[in-house]
């Protein structure tokens, strides 16, 4: 599984080389391609939406009963929006869900890893905890952001915050993610696997 380089990234985005749009790499909008596309990665900017936990509304999260009792995920979490120039303060040990500004399509036969940028890392910011992006994924990539540092950090939408590294896969597969076509950060979705979760958590013992 090789890493895709600068020139290959450009080729993957070229309609004259890949006529079928579903096989093309799409990262849009690429506002500053000259700087955003690195030798083996593409910079991704921070989107405008954030999801925070409403800790004062619940005692804990239990994946066994989460959403299964008809409670919408919005009861646990709140979506916030920051416009251009408006900061989002993330405090030490705080966890927030964000997303990339860019909408991305990973071609089949490729996959990606989202990693933080070292500048942010040096400030204690962890960008993504679930970093794998499947072949065929389309959407804004959800970022699980944690301030692991000692001081509050202000995040600004539009600022490059992560980077995606693409790899070529051996076979041709397409993702069937429940987060497909997301245009912002997504609330966790456990519903698709409710039976499985409930089996393992003992919720449907009979």
């Amino acid at each position: 599984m090789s890493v895709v380089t600068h020139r290959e990234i450009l080729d993957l985005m070229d309609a004259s080389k890949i006529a079928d749009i579903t096989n093309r790499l799409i990262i849009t909008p690429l506002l500053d391609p000259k700087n955003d596309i690195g030798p083996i990665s593409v910079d991704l900017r921070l989107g405008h939406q954030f999801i925070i936990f409403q800790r004062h509304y619940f005692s804990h999260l239990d994946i066994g009963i989460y959403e299964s009792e008809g409670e919408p995920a919005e009861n646990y979490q709140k979506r916030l929006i920051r416009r251009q120039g408006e900061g989002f303060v993330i405090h030490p040990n705080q966890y927030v869900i964000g997303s990339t500004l860019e909408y991305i399509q990973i071609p089949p036969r490729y996959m990606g890893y989202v990693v933080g940028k070292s500048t942010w890392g040096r400030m204690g910011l962890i960008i993504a905890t679930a970093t794998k992006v499947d072949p065929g994924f389309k959407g804004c990539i959800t970022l699980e952001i944690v301030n692991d540092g000692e001081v509050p950090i202000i995040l600004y939408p539009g600022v490059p915050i992560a980077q995606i590294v693409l790899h070529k896969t051996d076979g041709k597969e397409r993702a069937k993610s429940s987060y497909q076509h997301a245009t912002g950060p997504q609330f966790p979705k456990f519903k698709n696997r409710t039976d499985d979760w409930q089996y393992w958590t003992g919720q449907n013992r009979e």
Partner: protein
Amino acid sequence: MIIAEITESYFLEIRSRAEALKGQCEYLLTHEYASEAPKNLAKAFVEMACFFQMAALSIYKDMESDLADSPQDIEKSIQQLRTLDNDIALIGQHVQFINSARSQRVPWSIIPAFEHFANKILCDNDNGLDIMFCPLWEYNYQIYTTDFRGFYLQLLQKYQHFPGIDIDIEKDVLTSLKRPFYVIRFPSLERLNIRLHANIGHELGHKATSTFFTSQRKNEFIDSIHGDINDFVSRQYTQITPISRLSILKEHLGSSVEIWHRALDEILCDIVSCILFGPAAIFSMFDFAIKDKLDHMPNKDVGFYPPWRYRLRMAIEALEKYCGNYFPLKKELKARGKSTDTIHKVEEYYDFIKTLTGLPNVDELIKHDELTKLVYDKLPAWIDNGVDFLLNTKGLRNHLLTATELFENLPYLIERLENGIIPNAKEENINCRASASFAEIINSAWFYWLSKQEPVFSEDGSFNDEVYKARVRMNNLSLKAIEYSQLEQRYREKFGAAKEVTGNEYL
């Protein structure tokens, strides 16, 4: 003594209401908004509330010194307090605009694009204007064509000369409202329904047409119809006195002006929507019209609103006359995208609307009321006159969406939607990309949706949930496309065109 207590108590109530206004607006300022407009309005209301408190105090002090004077003086001061109280209550009503404009209640990602677009269309000078979009629980689109800033200024100036008030209202009270301020509302239930938002073109039209209806044009219309109405009255009312006949003639002329004004205004606004959004305007109008009866008599009971069938007919005529040959659709549309039915289905839908609006039902209905028929017979010439005004005097020719322009990028945008990709641009390669316009994105959503393949019902007769999901996806992708398009436009204005990527950067 009783008077003193009553006035004191009334003063306290007024001051409390002003304080409540201030408090509510300060609270609203702690929330998120998709643009600065609602915050600017809230800031202005906070200052206005303080100003109202000063004015109340000034009136009360004046009253206190008058208490020994005549009851007339006291009555005058109470009247002033009452006027002030009503003004506070009025501004209190306007707080609902701010409250409803909070980010979660609007299609937040496209509000800046909406505002920018509306500004471009409506502003007659370089100073610009502010527009606030907020939802309406009534199922309707709506524009307030009055400049709110101008209205507030006039309202506050009443108190400027009161003793103890030494304030420059524009500088010290309306500080946050620097430009004319307008409010456009959309049906709350349709917040995320991007296709329907082409109807905003119609609302922008109301502002554009407001200067068309001058007293000179009104008199021209009256002159043109006076003889016909006189004949009609003479025929209808043979047994009445000349004075009664004159009175009936006057009444009929008044009604004819109302029918003319309302019909022409609505139709011209529909045409503004066609100018700005092309076929999407017709489709979204029809989507709205289908919820209503297509034919009704445009009488007082319905506020003289013209019937939908007639409106759509006129809009289609204008689209074909002024915007070029959209239909039959160009074959290039089929060239991209997997759906070979795109052309067929969209054309079929357009033809259906055209056929439906061509049916004579509405003409038969109008024929039954001679006065209405007289007015409607004169409308086509006035529509031409009005469109000429809009295109040339109001400068809408610069915003005319022609078929040639629209179809240049549309196939690429439809192809993206078909494949679950945001239709924000035509991207050929890293150095060759064209950002899509607001109108192109809304049209791509319409064309994609009309040519969709999924049936609404499954084979077993149940509702096909996938269609609903596809609709949600289309809305999300299109809303995001408008956000991206605006974001990119602003970025380019700041930093210029993107630097070319050669591919040799890291060799």
